């Protein structure tokens, strides 16, 4: 557990922001201010160090006591026929409270990162997959194929913590990384290779890779600007690798029906396992997206994009998409939960809106109710899921800023109904 080695000085602090669950941060706390002393990066450092904003809740932009904000939120939700509980960037306890409230209200639940997460979930539910976790990558991976994403921009410490070191069964010097699609922003190391293509060509390129792995007869010499010979070499390397890993970030595959590209990758992994070992590694886990889907999974059987309006959970990845429901006017109130990132504010909407947001959030237009909440892992203890979905990270309270947790506020709203 995170340890306070001297007053205000913490080590082994886990990060709820980075998606990889790095838990080696050293942080100094002075009053309300946090300073990351060791192992911060471009994602975790600003997220931990962001100063607190106004702690007082507001109704229509005017400061009110918490109880009044809660009562107003309950009033809005009570009169709504179909509310949307969106955002859902919170911890396990916050998600539990959100689902309890949704069940009570007959609401729809969706997560702010669902558009990306669904590119993976749809594949899981249609054909399944073979995947691995971060410690397996660290200790076994001898060939990493990165598809369509600049990993280091989204996950700055991914390579440092999981690849560029000696594992139990894979020496650092024997590992190779091949980028397919996007080239990394920084010049890759010597044992890396880039097969660059535009996003729009990636579906065709990964389709060709799968065909080559299955020894299909190929007439074409290039696909999407990539030489087939290069892809054939990649296919051969994957077949020869002892523990290949194909990784992608659904958030970076941002085009219609990108789930079909994910599916080709996942089926390619299955094909490779006829003879050798290979695994997929879907990258994600930010803003509690894995957490939302995990908790919703065990409490309802379904991922988010689930509605309770008929008294029991009904999942539909298309009809229950939060942005669509707002756009079509099917929902008539919005409760937006965003406890990690002050910039993830609710989408534009003309609905009565309640925001449970990280303290310091600012709005173009004041929501009907705004309740600043604490950050899991800074202001209160909790649990969040890492990108690989297996490891639930225990989060700790580092400071006392007098902010309520998401779950406390949601429970108070439910009690006020």
């Amino acid at each position, binding site marked *: *557990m*995170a*340890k306070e080695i001297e007053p205000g000085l913490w080590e*082994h602090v*886990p990060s709820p922001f980075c998606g*990889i*669950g790095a*838990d*080696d941060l050293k942080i100094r706390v002075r009053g309300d201010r946090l300073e990351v002393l060791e192992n911060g990066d471009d994602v975790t450092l600003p997220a931990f160090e962001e100063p607190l904003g106004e702690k007082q809740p507001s109704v229509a932009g005017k400061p009110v006591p918490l109880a009044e904000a809660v009562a107003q939120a309950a009033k809005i939700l009570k009169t709504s026929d179909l509310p949307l509980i969106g955002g859902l960037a919170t911890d*396990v306890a916050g998600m*539990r409270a959100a689902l*309890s409230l949704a*069940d009570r209200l007959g609401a729809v639940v969706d997560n702010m990162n669902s558009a990306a997460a669904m590119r993976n*979930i749809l594949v*899981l*539910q*249609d054909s*399944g*997959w*073979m*995947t*691995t*976790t*971060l*410690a*397996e990558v*660290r*200790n*076994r991976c001898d060939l990493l194929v990165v598809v369509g994403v600049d990993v280091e921009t989204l996950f700055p410490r991914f390579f440092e*913590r*999981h690849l560029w070191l000696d*594992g*139990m069964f894979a020496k650092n010097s024997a590992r190779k990384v091949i980028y397919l699609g996007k080239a990394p922003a920084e010049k890759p190391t010597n044992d890396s290779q880039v097969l660059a293509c535009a996003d729009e060509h990636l579906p065709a390129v990964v389709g060709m890779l799968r065909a080559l792995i299955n020894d299909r007869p190929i007439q074409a010499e290039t696909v999407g600007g990539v030489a087939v010979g290069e892809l054939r070499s990649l296919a051969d390397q994957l077949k020869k690798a002892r*523990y290949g890993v194909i990784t992608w970030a659904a958030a970076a595959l941002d085009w219609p029906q990108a789930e079909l590209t994910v599916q080709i990758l996942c089926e390619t992994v299955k094909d490779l*396992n006829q003879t050798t*070992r290979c*695994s997929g590694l879907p990258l994600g886990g930010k803003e509690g997206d894995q957490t939302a*889907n*995990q908790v919703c*999974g*065990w*409490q*309802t*059987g*379904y*991922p988010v994009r689930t509605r*309770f309006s008929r*008294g*029991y*959970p*009904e*999942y539909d990845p298309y009809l229950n998409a939060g942005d669509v429901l707002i756009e079509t006017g099917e929902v008539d109130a919005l409760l937006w939960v965003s406890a990690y990132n002050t910039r993830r504010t609710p989408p534009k909407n003309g609905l009565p809106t309640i925001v449970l947001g990280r303290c310091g959030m600012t709005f173009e237009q004041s929501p009907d109710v705004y309740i600043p909440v604490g950050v899991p892992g800074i202001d209160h*203890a909790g*649990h969040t899921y890492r990108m690989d*979905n*297996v*490891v*639930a*990270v*225990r989060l700790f309270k580092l400071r006392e800023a007098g902010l309520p947790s998401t779950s406390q506020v949601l429970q108070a709203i439910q009690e006020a109904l």
Partner: protein
Amino acid sequence: MLIKLTGGTVYDPAHRVNGRVHDLYIQDGRIVDPPAGAHVDKEYDLHGMVVMAGAIDMHTHIGGGKVNIARTLLPEDHRADPAAHTEILRSGCGHAAPSTLTTGYRYAEMGFTTAFEPAVLPVNARQAHMEMGDIPILDKGGYAMLGSDDFLLRLMQSGADQKMINDYVAWTLNASQCIGIKVVNPGGISAFKFNQRALDLDEEHEYYGVTPRQVLKVLATAVNELAVPHPLHVHGCNLGVPGNMETTLNTISGIEGLPMHLTHIQFHSYGTEGDFKFSSGAARIAEAINANKNITVDVGQVLFGQTVTASGDNMRQHANAGHAHPHKWVCMDIECDAGCGVVPFKYRDKNFVNALQWAIGLEIFLLVDNPWQVYLTTDHPNGAPFTSYPHLIRLLMDRSFRNEQLSRLHPEAQKMTTLASIEREYSLYEIAIMTRAGAAELVGLSDRGHLGAGAAADITVYVPDANREKMFSRPKYVFKDGQLVVKDGEIVKVVWGTTHVVKPEYDHAVEKSLEKYFDQYMTMKLDNFVIREEEISEDGRGSVTIHPCWGGRGI
């Protein structure tokens, strides 16, 4: 508050009470001796009714990563069994991979008050406990999985002594808040990561050079020497492979008298005779169980219909993935700790293999003489959903019903089983042993599974019915810790159970080795891996109950 249960016919095998009419008293959640002259606050007239302790499922996959993968994988299965919310119940879904809330309600509605998740990966134990924390009414607990984790295999490869392994096993139980140790395909989940596709009992792991037999031996010894009540819980090698009966028999003899529990033994009792090269090994397996009092088993009965198989054994699940129905499946390698495989499956009575699996399970139930050695499971959801237990109980208690069901199966399967000639019918007393007294003793719960003074007042009351399926589907009353939670088969109150654990002592020097290993190879710090009790109790509902390491029933 003093509650009196008057005039029920009591089946309490822990006290050798076999259908005797006597009163029970409940005070402060416990069963108490008849208090002299005390005022009874509430009395239930149980004349003509059957009274047993709350039932215990000692092997059911109800919480943890692979269960949640199974849930996410099967929206179409949930849609057929929605569970609506009521004034007191939360909504959810049922059937093969039910939601946590519905899991608790439906177990309680059948008279169950305790259930154990048998495959808790230590690295995923936090999730298992969080899921089980959302299962209402039931007490719960988990068995921590070891045997394919690289730390243990490295210890064995380096020739570490048994004491070091004992310390690691004890540390694992403490760190994962579990009550027993399970091993799944010993060493095989790790071997699959090195691309080995099978690992027989005496076959060497290609990297570590250790064999499954050696893994079983060191772990069974550790559990025994730590005096953990629940014997090593073993999912053996070669699950589902025709001919695996020989492996199972060798596993029994190879453990050399140490206590060992062989789980879902039905899946490990196959021969290779007949036109289809698939036959029942039940008779020989039962004979071995009868001859070895150190061995206990649960059956993992197959019942027909759609379900999903969820296992830590990704080596075997990958091999069987082609049978997936619907055709989708998941396999994972997990954190140098273990793995998992989730394969949906539909058992069909007109399919020769499935029909014979059904018969093999029942043969084992009926051919094992001592009901203290065999436990009622479907390995939920792998053989069938737990909601089919009342049907299974009827198959065991009612020969004519059993034979009538048998007559509907694939004709070649009928020829390959001796089931029709087995006359045995389980008695209520024997059902109470395998689902209550025996299960509690096997797991190490001294205050559950019986109705003596001091026991937790987990009590189930049934209205007798010649149709045992009907009787066991819908208890008249269920009390959990003295509170009435079910009346006429429906939940009337939602309470929250405790989490049962053991905390064997160990030499903390092992943490130095672990810390070094975690820093060098793992993706989290050792002290962030360890689960503290407050993580289970801080929601205000959960609690941890520590049971002493007293060595179990011994041999």
